[in-house]
């Protein structure tokens, strides 16, 4: 097992290298650079030449990549063109918000999807099951920008229950428990928006997984032994049906970053997703590179965790 993990990590290194080359190439292929969009009749060509030189944009792309890479080895992510600040500072400012959002959305996803899925599987083909299935499909097919705006319209403007932007109340200066409550109050709508799609798919997943388990021979045996149905459900059905969920968590790590891109933009929630979108429009490639690589690392690590957990929860799977 330990050998397997080491091997996987070693394989990840060339993979990350290739990803970085691809992302860099794509960001170089996009027409224009960080200064193309800056139309100011007061600035002359000389100024732009000077800026491109100062940021190394006049160099050959290969050389630019080499500079980026050597800086990375030194632990530096470079200087943002538009903020003119170290990329690491920008990420540190925002990463907490994104992790908090992803965490709340995960809690919502598991907290709702598990009971709903089990409930649905307990009464298959009932009216409630159909309602839930329909709702899942509606949610699955709803783009998150639309869901986000709909939630803002209903809960921020009409009912005025939740705020529609930011992470805390302007100038309130809360501390202690009221600070936490204020944060939760602000993160609620974005977390729901981010969770909606995964709640829907998880509910479907759990429903079918539980239904499958219920058809197994050992469940019939358990009933034949005369066990109460609640015990059968808890000990035999759920244990087998829900274990694979643990592995889904690993695969979700990367997904949450990508989902946050749209959600954070709608709710002007200052996290990494919002920064990512902004850096793409600004052709701010030090940020694009840093965030893409972070995403790649998350996905690779998530996959590794998922694979390891498979082996842990399912003795039939072995890695040699």
């Amino acid at each position: 097992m330990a050998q397997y993990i080491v091997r996987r990590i070693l394989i990840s290194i060339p993979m990350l290298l290739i990803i970085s080359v691809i992302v860099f190439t794509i960001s170089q292929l996009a027409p224009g650079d960080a200064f193309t969009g800056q139309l100011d009749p007061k600035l002359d060509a000389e100024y732009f030449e000077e800026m491109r030189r100062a940021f190394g944009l006049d160099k050959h792309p290969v050389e630019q990549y080499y500079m980026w890479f050597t800086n990375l080895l030194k632990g530096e992510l470079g200087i943002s063109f538009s903020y003119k600040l170290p990329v690491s500072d920008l990420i540190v400012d925002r990463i907490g918000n994104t992790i908090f959002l992803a965490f709340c959305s995960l809690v919502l996803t598991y907290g709702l999807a598990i009971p709903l899925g089990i409930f649905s599987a307990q009464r298959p083909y009932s009216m409630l099951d159909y309602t839930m299935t329909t709702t899942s499909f509606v949610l699955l097919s709803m783009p998150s920008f639309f869901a986000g705006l709909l939630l803002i319209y209903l809960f921020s403007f009409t009912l005025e229950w939740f705020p529609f932007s930011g992470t805390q109340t302007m100038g309130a200066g809360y501390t202690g428990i009221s600070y936490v409550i204020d944060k939760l109050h602000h993160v609620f709508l974005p977390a729901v928006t981010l969770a909606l799609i995964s709640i829907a798919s998880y509910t479907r997943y759990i429903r079918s997984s539980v239904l499958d388990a219920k058809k197994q021979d050992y469940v019939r045996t358990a009933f034949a032994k005369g066990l109460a149905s609640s015990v059968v459900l808890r000990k035999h059905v759920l244990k087998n049906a829900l274990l694979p969920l643990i592995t889904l968590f690993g695969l979700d790590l990367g997904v949450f970053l990508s989902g946050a891109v749209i959600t954070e933009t709608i709710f002007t929630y200052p996290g990494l997703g919002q920064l990512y979108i902004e850096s793409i429009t600004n052709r701010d490639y030090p940020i694009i590179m840093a965030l893409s690589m972070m995403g790649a690392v998350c996905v690779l690590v998530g996959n590794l965790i998922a694979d390891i957990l498979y082996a842990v929860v399912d003795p039939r799977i072995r890695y040699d």
Partner: protein
Amino acid sequence: MKRKSFLLMMSIILVLSMFIAACSSKDAGSGEGKGEGNPEYGGHVTLSMFSAPKGLFNIIFYEDQYDNYVLNYTTESLWAYDDKMQLTVPLLAEKWELSDDGKVVTITLRKDAKWSDGEPITTDDFIFTWETIASKEYTTEAKAPRYYAVEQIKGAAEMHEGKADSLSGVKKIDDHTMEVEFTEATANALDNLWPSPIPKHVFDGMSVVEMKNSGASRNAGEIVTSGAFKFKEAKKNEYVILEKNPHYYVEGRPYLDEIHLKVMTQDVAMGALKNEQIDFLGQINPAEFDTIKKMDHVTIKETQDLAYQYLGFKVKNPKLSNKKLRQAISYGINRKAMVDGLLRGHGTVLNQHMPDASWAANEKLKDAYPYDPEKAKQILEEAGYKDVDGDGFVEDPDGKKLEISLDYPTGNPVRERSAILIGEDLKKIGLNIKVKSPRDFESHSDAVQKDKVEMWLMGWSLVPDPDPSGIWGSKANWNYPRWENKKSDELMKKAITELDQEKQKEIYAEWTELVSEEAPYVFLYTQNRIEAWNNRVKGVTFDWRGAIEHYKFIDWWIPKDLQ
């Protein structure tokens, strides 16, 4: 059956609840009529920012438009433009006088002006500010963009090249009087001169990069301001709270205690105005005008903006080098339909680089190039553009097929739709126009800058100073049509060195007519600047620059019972 009816009922309930939600908007706090009463102190207004400020709150270093938006309330200038776009309003400068040859200006500062920490604002601060901007490190190390604003001061070039440590053209007479000498006498010397100081007593001794990165440029608690408000709290990427500057020199101003600026998307800002969560809304789309006008608690006003949209021609492209073709296209586009249809009347058809609101606008061009497809066809015919092969499209005078492409960017819905209309209109006069798929603005801009397009759509935002040489000079970076014309260069040069504004206006009239005749652009339209605010805010001044960015925000006040 039972199941179906349940689903049906659910959906009816859902639709109904949305309908009820739509109707139950509150209508509190409607306007109190026109008699505004006596100003009262206290309270705060809330403004929206459509993207987060970058947090560089230093007037000589900022580059982000929302950093500027915030700084507008915390920064005082030497002077301001009046409602006729003339630089006549004294602020920090009590008076100023140009020498007869126009090369030296003597500026007298107010003696009572103070920084937000109570220190007096003196000529030392201004000289320090100008010398910082002129220094070599300002551009090369701090990578800041404002050297152009001191360039015309004598000695600036030497400092910029690193050959001098101070500006030879600036002379301090005493703490409140100074002389500034320009390298040449120009009509817009004062428009171009950097007008806003940074505090010397705070930044002295730092290198330029240290100034830019210091807490005094970035941390709310440390920033010392010259304007009516100072920073109370700035939450990165979320909001900024400004509070009254107790040392502000204007007696009894501002009335407001605080100004709150909050980041939210443009999509939700209108709802926030309706729900009274924000007090001001700018950059309103013409399509939203009527909806906002219906809100009882809101005042909405519009004015012609100092920005315009145009269709450009790469005049060096052989296809487009014929002036007659460009003129025919100018006649062949129904610009009035764009203003009436796409802008719903909230705009004006434009025929020149100078907007109507400017004193330099040429009255005679008001109706140049009316929509006249027949005339357009006639011009094409006379110039030899005929449909030889009978496919419905004209060939060029050599009989070769003529297809012209039109590029446009995404991001401005009105402009995107105007591209389609232009394609349709030009088809009607027999031109084969290939309207390309829109690209994102950066890609479009890159193609335009590198001359990889034929015809394209874009816009300019102008400043009150009418000097067009930055955009129209034959060698200018921003001369995208690559239109080179000696006469035009001469006229622009002549206008800028003519100190009598009446004569200057005549020169600009000649210049605008030359541009109109040569038609390197089809000027399309200006979209109105539309702004709205909650009626609880009184004392709002609105003119060509709108209300939100007007220097008279210090007069805003809110009645006690509405605070």
